C-alpha cells in the first residue's frame, strides 16, 4: 500500500504553542480553563509532527471530556462510545496494520466501563497506543467517583470523601497493564506537570507501535479545576502533591532491547 511508509516529514513547528497537527479552525479548544486535556493533546500533536505520521494516524476518542477532542487535530478522528475506543482502534489496526492507532480516553472509560478492553488489548499485545487521562473523577458528568479517586477525596457520589473500606483504593492502571502485557509493551505514567517528560513518553509509545513491538500505554496525570473546585494554585498543588504521591510517575515497561534512538 502507498501509505506503508510515512511520507510526511514535517519541519519542527515554528510556533511552539501551536503544533502543526493541531487544527486551527477548532481553536480555541472546548476544554475548561486549566483542564489538563489541552496539555496532553498539545504534547500528542507535537509528537505526531515530530514523527511525521500525520497521514497514518487514526485517532479515536472516548466519551467524557475526551470527546471534546473529536475535531481537535488535523488527522482523521472518530469519536466512539464510553469505554469503547480501544476496540474501535484495535479493529482498524487489525484490518489495516499500517495505521497508527491512537485511543484517547479518561480514567472512567479506560479503568471502569472499558476496563475489559484495556486488559484484553494489553494481554493480546495489540499494536496500538492507548493514552489515558487520569484526573481522579468523572468530569463530564459532574465529578463522580472514579476508579482513580484518591482516599478521602470528595466527589459528587462520595460527598463525605472516598472511604477505601467501602469503595476500594485508587486503581493503579499502568501497574496493571505492565503486569499483564506481553514482551514488546511500552507502559508509562506521565503528568501534565512535567511536559517534556510526558512528550518523551508519548513519543516512545508511538514509536513502539511504529516499530511493531507491542501494546503501548501512557497514563497522563491530568487536572480538573472545575470539578476539584480549586484555583490555579490548589490545582497545581493537588496534581504535583497528592496525585503524584499516590500515582508514581515514570516508565514501567520499556521493550528490550531498547528501540534505537531511545534515550533518557
Amino acid at each position, binding site marked *: 500500500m502507498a501509505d506503508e511508509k510515512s511520507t510526511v516529514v514535517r519541519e519542527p513547528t515554528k510556533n511552539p504553542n501551536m503544533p502543526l497537527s493541531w487544527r486551527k479552525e477548532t481553536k480555541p479548544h472546548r476544554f475548561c480553563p486549566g483542564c489538563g486535556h489541552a496539555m496532553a493533546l498539545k504534547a500528542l500533536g507535537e509528537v505526531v509532527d515530530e514523527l511525521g505520521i500525520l497521514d497514518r494516524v487514526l485517532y479515536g476518542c472516548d466519551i467524557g471530556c475526551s470527546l471534546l477532542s473529536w475535531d481537535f487535530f488535523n488527522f482523521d478522528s*472518530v469519536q466512539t462510545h464510553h469505554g469503547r475506543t480501544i476496540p474501535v482502534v484495535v*479493529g482498524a489496526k487489525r484490518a489495516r496494520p499500517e495505521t497508527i492507532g491512537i485511543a484517547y480516553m479518561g480514567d472512567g472509560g479506560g479503568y471502569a466501563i472499558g476496563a475489559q478492553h484495556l486488559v484484553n488489548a494489553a494481554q493480546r499485545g495489540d499494536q496500538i497506543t492507548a493514552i489515558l487521562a487520569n484526573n481522579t473523577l468523572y468530569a463530564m458528568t459532574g465529578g463522580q467517583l472514579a476508579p482513580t479517586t484518591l482516599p478521602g477525596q470528595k466527589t459528587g457520589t462520595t460527598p463525605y470523601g472516598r472511604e477505601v473500606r467501602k469503595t476500594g483504593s485508587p486503581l493503579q492502571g499502568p501497574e496493571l497493564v505492565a503486569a499483564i502485557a506481553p514482551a514488546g509493551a511500552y507502559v508509562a505514567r506521565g503528568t501534565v506537570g512535567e511536559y517534556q517528560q510526558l512528550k518523551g513518553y508519548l513519543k516512545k509509545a508511538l514509536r513502539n507501535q511504529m516499530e511493531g513491538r507491542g501494546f503501548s500505554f501512557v497514563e497522563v496525570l491530568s487536572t480538573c479545576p472545575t470539578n476539584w473546585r480549586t484555583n490555579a494554585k490548589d490545582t497545581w498543588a493537588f496534581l504535583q502533591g497528592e496525585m503524584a504521591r499516590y500515582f508514581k510517575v515514570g516508565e514501567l515497561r520499556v521493550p528490550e532491547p531498547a528501540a534505537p534512538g531511545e534515550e533518557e
Partner: protein
Amino acid sequence: MTGNEVVAWAALAAEADFMYGYPITPQNEIMHYWSRLAPHFGRGFLQTEDEMAAGFAMLGGALVGKKTFCATAGPGNILMQEPIAMAEMMQIPGVWIIQQRGGPSTATVIYSQQELRLTTAGGNGEGLRIVYSTASHQELFEYTIKAFNRAWQYRFPTFVLGDGYQAKLREAVTLFRPAAKGWTLIPAEPLVRGPGIPALDREPVHLRNTFNIEEELYARLEEQLAAYERLTPEVVEWEVEIGPETEVLLVAHGIVARAAKQAQKMLNQQGQKVGYFRPITVRPFPGTALRQAVGANPNLRLLVVESAYGQLLSMVKAELYGLTNPIDTLLKPGVGVTAEEIVATVTKRAPKEVCHGG
C-alpha cells in the same frame, strides 16, 4: 453442510475481509469455519473479549475501508446493540449474522424467533437497519452475500436473521461465485484514512456521534430517516400466495414460514382455501404488500405463527391498523412449530386472540 458453514462460505464469496467474533452458541461454527478459511484467502479473524468489543472492532475495520462482519445470538445480541447503535448513527456499514436462541436471558442454546424485536428495533434509536429473515440454507448463502452489498450500498447496519435450527441443520445448498450469476459486489470504501495527507491534500475526517443541541440531532435524523424511506421500496422483500377465494392467510417469517408453506399445501389438498404471506425483510417490513393482500378481502382471517410471543404479531397489527380482519395466532416462544400444528390450528379455527385492527 450446516447453516453455520454456509454463512462462512457466503462471507468468503461476498469478499468479506475481516470477522471479529466472540463465542456464543449456536453461531460458533461460523467463527470456526471462517477462521479455518480466512488465512488461505488473505482474510482476517480476531476473537475479542466480548460482543461489544467485536462490534466496535467491526466498526474500526469498516472505517478504514474493510468489509467486516460478526455473528452472535441471544445475550450476545443484547451486548451487540451498543455498537450497532453507533453504526446506525454514524452510518458505518457492517453485517451481523444472528442465530436466534431461546430467551429471555441465557434460556436455551437451541432455537427461537425471540430476537426479532431486538434485531429490528434494538438500540436507543429508530432501528434504521436492514434485516433479512432466512428460511433455508440456500437463502442463508444468498442473503448473506446480499447483506454485504446492502450494507455497503446504503450504510445502514444489515442483518441476516437466522436461528439455531438453521445454524445446526444439514441440508443441500448450491454455492456459487457471485460473478457467475452476474451479481456485482459493491466494494468497501474507507471512511477515514482515505487517500491523501489530511490538512495538506484534503480536509481531515472528523466523525462523531455526539451532538450539542436538539436541532442539530434532529436535522441529522431527518436526513437519515429520509434516506431510510428512500431505500425501503428498493430493499423490501416478501413472498405471498393469495387468491380471491382465500379464507385463511398464514403469516410467518424465517424457518417457521417453511412450516407454514407446508401447512398451506396440506390444507389446500384437503380442500381448504389457505394462503401464505412471508416477510423476507422483517425490517423494513413489507407492510404495503401485506395490507394490499389483506385489505382486498374483509372476510379473510389471518393466522400469525411464530416461535415468539407476538413479536411478529405486533408488526402485522401495526401494518393492518384500521382493517377489521380477524387475527388468530399460534405463538410458541422458544420452541419450533410443525406444519401439523398449523394445520390443526386452522382446522380447529379456535381463535386465541382476535384483533379488530387495533
